């Protein structure tokens, strides 16, 4: 009898402690995400709401705000420059961002190989572009891609028999130069994120696979990539957002003519011009809202696409 009672008591205790454990987890959950949301509440919420409200107003920054309903959106959507800037942003994004992710994985894989020496040195150098100040980057790329025949970029393409290009002012020249700048600056950043991801994969898996007779390439495809997938999704997502919000690289590259030319104007540059050069904060905010919608859409698509990686391969494993 006592045993049964003891067992019943034990079961009860287990049950009750499990319940409160779930509750405990819930409380912990909320508690631990709280700091982030507190910060957001302080510094993130107000500007976000302000911008959304502003999209429906006409405001020059100094005077009174005037409610204008959807007309800001109409103005922006009917402006050919808006669409041009969107086109520019997407093209530069594809050229500059997509390669950076692929190269990043490859580089991270190389750096992670046990046989490679001097990894520290390579790690530092590959990360250097991210550390180098934008001022310096702009100056260097500005000189490298200047319109002169003796500019280094023109010299290089001259070796392939191509005529000198006026980089800062040509339709494709500007985009290529900026895409290269973006690639250069961010490839190291993505590499070290992938490196961190690679670290989280247990070496045991590779050993087991080698014993099973899989070669390096097969291991890469069937172990590394699928397990790296969350990090790939992460970087794809961040890069998509970053590419659509591109502002710094074109602005510093083009310098004083950044807001007067349309070859390399990005969407954020377009809205910046509206706000600070034209005194039209309403249309700028409307553009920001439109961009938000585009970003959510693009990020969703990209994330869905990248989650497709590895699911086919799972069959192989």
């Amino acid at each position: 009898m006592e045993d049964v009672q003891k067992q019943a008591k034990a079961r009860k205790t287990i049950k009750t402690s499990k319940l409160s454990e779930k509750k405990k987890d819930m409380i912990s959950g909320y508690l631990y995400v709280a700091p982030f949301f507190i910060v957001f509440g302080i510094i993130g919420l107000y500007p976000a709401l302000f911008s959304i409200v502003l999209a429906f107003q006409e405001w020059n920054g100094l005077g009174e705000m005037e409610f204008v309903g959807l007309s800001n959106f109409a103005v922006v959507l009917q402006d050919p420059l808006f669409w041009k800037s969107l086109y520019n942003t997407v093209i530069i994004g594809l050229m500059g961002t997509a390669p950076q992710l692929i190269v990043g994985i490859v580089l991270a894989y190389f750096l992670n190989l046990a046989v490679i020496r001097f990894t520290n040195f390579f790690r530092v150098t590959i990360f250097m572009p991210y550390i180098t100040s934008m001022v310096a980057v702009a100056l260097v790329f500005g000189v490298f891609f200047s319109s002169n025949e003796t500019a280094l970029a023109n010299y290089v393409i001259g070796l392939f028999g191509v005529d000198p290009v006026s980089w800062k002012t040509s339709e494709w020249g500007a985009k290529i130069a900026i895409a290269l700048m973006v690639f250069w600056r961010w490839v190291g950043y993505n590499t070290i994120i992938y490196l961190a991801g690679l670290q989280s994969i247990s070496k045991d898996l590779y050993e087991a696979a080698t014993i099973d007779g899989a070669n390096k390439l097969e291991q890469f495809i069937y172990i590394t990539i699928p397990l790296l997938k969350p990090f790939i999704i992460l970087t794809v997502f961040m890069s998509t957002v970053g590419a659509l919000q591109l502002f710094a690289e074109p602005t510093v590259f083009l310098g004083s003519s950044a807001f007067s030319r349309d070859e390399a104007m990005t969407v954020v540059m377009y809205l910046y011009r509206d706000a600070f050069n034209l005194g039209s904060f309403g249309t700028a905010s409307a553009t920001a809202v439109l961009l938000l919608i585009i970003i959510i859409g693009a990020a969703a698509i990209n994330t869905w696409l990248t989650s497709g990686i590895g699911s086919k391969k799972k069959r192989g494993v």
Partner: protein
Amino acid sequence: MKKRKNQSKAGTLPIYLILGFTSLFSLFPFYWMFVMATQPSAAYNSIPPTLLPGGKLVENFQKVLDTIPFFQAMWNTVLLCTVVTVAVLLISSLAGFAFAKFQFPGKNFLFILILLTMVIPPQLGLIPQYYLISQLGWLDTLMGAGILFLLNPLGIFLMRQYISESVPDELMEAAKLDGCSNFRIYWSIVIPIIKPAFATLGIIVFTLVWGEFLWQFTVLRDPSSYTLQVALASLNNAFRVDFGMLLSGVFWATVPLIIIFLIFNKWFISSITEGSVK
């Protein structure tokens, strides 16, 4: 055994070539920055471009020191970057841990809400953010300059991924059975495991804050509270730029960051070789 060694050595040569080329490609602008820091201003515009260092290393830097409170700004920057990095690491890992390992209602909604923080371009949010910081009395303070960087969704995403992949559920179960509270688990188990992620996120945030200009420039008005990028900006006078001086300032402002990167890098490596709890 000998065969294997030779094979792997031959296979590694192309890899070294690729890595080497990438390094050159990455280092070149930094090298050029150094060259310009040692040349007089006119060298910037020279056609064809100057590629070898000159002799003005000390002279240019002296000009920098004469014009801006360089070391004061550097101290401010180090302080700001350190505080922000520590804060971000804590906030992100806590939240990442919660998202990875706990169930609670509204979890997915909150996760998506985080995405919204990324969405307002900083250039547009500037005025309301500035207004807010000013009203809170945080102009010219570390808090005012730093708080914006705490809103770093990358941190949460990264931590969540890393934790869900490298902290086994069984480990947590075992700890709980031993009577550990959630916080104890976080502090004594999770944190040691995610050190490489800490090192990665840490250097990203540190670099980000070190190099950021717009917000710090807007919030910091008093020269004694300047950070490096803000101080360097006063070297850039549109019509009379002394490129040698400017690039010297930029160069020396970057060097400490490289040193710090090396430290983070060591931390990254040592935490890997320590191995995980496995």
